[in-house]
């Protein structure tokens, strides 16, 4: 026999249990199990030709508003040993490619940039409502139906990868094409990179061809001193890149 006192004790537990009952199954990709994957990206700077295909593909695939970028390409020029003061340009995020350079010497190269899908991401830590989060497969996402548009995450990202959507007024960023990778496809930027400079990597899958590359090459992340657990891994990253 349950007394009135015991019934009150059970109420909070019942409320929590009922939440789980109502939750149902949220995954829209039936053959996809989040915990089987841990996503990152490999970017080989020595292969990037600055064509802007990745930027255009990302804009098209994700309806990125004009003038804003989820991914972009920077062109670096480093004079001899002046690593502390590289000259960087990125006209329209590199979306239309790059005009001929005015430099004739020094080091010149392209660096594609995007959200680093950090395992310890500063942006998710500052969100006051839990609208941005890390999924169990290592992707940092934004729930735009729940985002307040407070901009804390935009300020917190040390890589400048977020922006406020000009119409929705919610935070926006690279989703690592979550709607594609959960269906077994690669991201739009990787699919459209003509030289294979970008490769999606499943860091939990030992059969992923990029894993062998990672084992045998010296790769680096951007701003490693911040210990954000960045998962965009660069091959051939120059020390001048910020």
């Amino acid at each position, binding site marked *: 026999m349950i007394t009135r006192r015991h019934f*009150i004790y059970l*109420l*909070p537990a019942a*409320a929590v249990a009922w*939440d789980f009952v*109502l*939750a*149902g*199954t*949220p*995954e*829209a*990709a039936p053959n*996809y199990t*989040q915990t089987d994957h841990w996503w990152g990206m490999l970017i080989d700077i*020595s*292969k*990037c*030709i*600055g*064509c*802007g*295909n990745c930027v255009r*593909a990302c804009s*098209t*695939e994700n309806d990125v508003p004009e003038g804003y970028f989820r991914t972009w390409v920077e*062109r*670096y*020029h480093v004079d001899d040993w002046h690593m502390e003061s590289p000259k960087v340009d990125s006209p329209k995020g590199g979306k239309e*490619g*790059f005009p*001929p*350079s005015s*430099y*004739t010497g020094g080091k010149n*190269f*392209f660096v594609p940039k995007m959200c680093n899908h950090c395992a310890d991401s500063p942006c998710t830590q500052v969100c006051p409502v*839990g*609208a*941005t*989060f*890390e*999924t*169990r497969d290592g992707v940092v*996402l934004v*729930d735009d*139906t*729940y985002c307040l548009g407070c901009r804390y995450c935009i300020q917190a990202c040390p890589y400048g990868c977020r922006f406020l959507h000009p119409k929705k007024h919610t935070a926006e960023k690279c989703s690592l094409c*979550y*709607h*594609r990778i959960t*269906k077994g*496809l*690669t991201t*739009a930027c990787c*699919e*459209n*990179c*003509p*030289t294979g400079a970008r490769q999606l990597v499943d860091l939990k899958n030992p059969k992923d061809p990029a894993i062998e590359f990672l084992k045998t090459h010296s790769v680096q992340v951007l701003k490693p001193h911040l210990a954000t657990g960045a998962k965009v891994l660069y091959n051939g990253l120059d020390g001048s890149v910020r």
Partner: protein
Amino acid sequence: MVGFVLFLVLRAHFVPRTFGQYGHYRGAAVGELSSKPVKFAGHQLCEGCHDDVLKVKSAGPHAHVNCEACHGPQAKHADDPGEFKPQLPDTAVLCARCHEANIAKPKGFPQVVSAEHSSGVACKTCHIPHNPKQMPGEKHS
């Protein structure tokens, strides 16, 4: 007691049902984000029908360039090839995006100054885009 019940009622009203299911976020958001439609079909789907093009492409330096990198998003075409016909890209513009000379490009990558090389003539006049090593009129191997 009344306050506690009021808290539960308000909580049930304001906090989404799936919030906290996986962590400090709305669990249903994961499914919503992954259910968005794709626009780029992926080269595997293209190659299922266009195996003749794949054969030509595989023999040349564009073997690893995926179809939609040049032809644009084709998910609609893949869904209904009769209704949605892809337009042929203008090779004078398309090829230059990759092959226009720029000091920041990797040294081994084939580059030309298009104004000197072709003066605006479409690249496909002299090169077969799917396999630029072949000349137009040459039989596909």
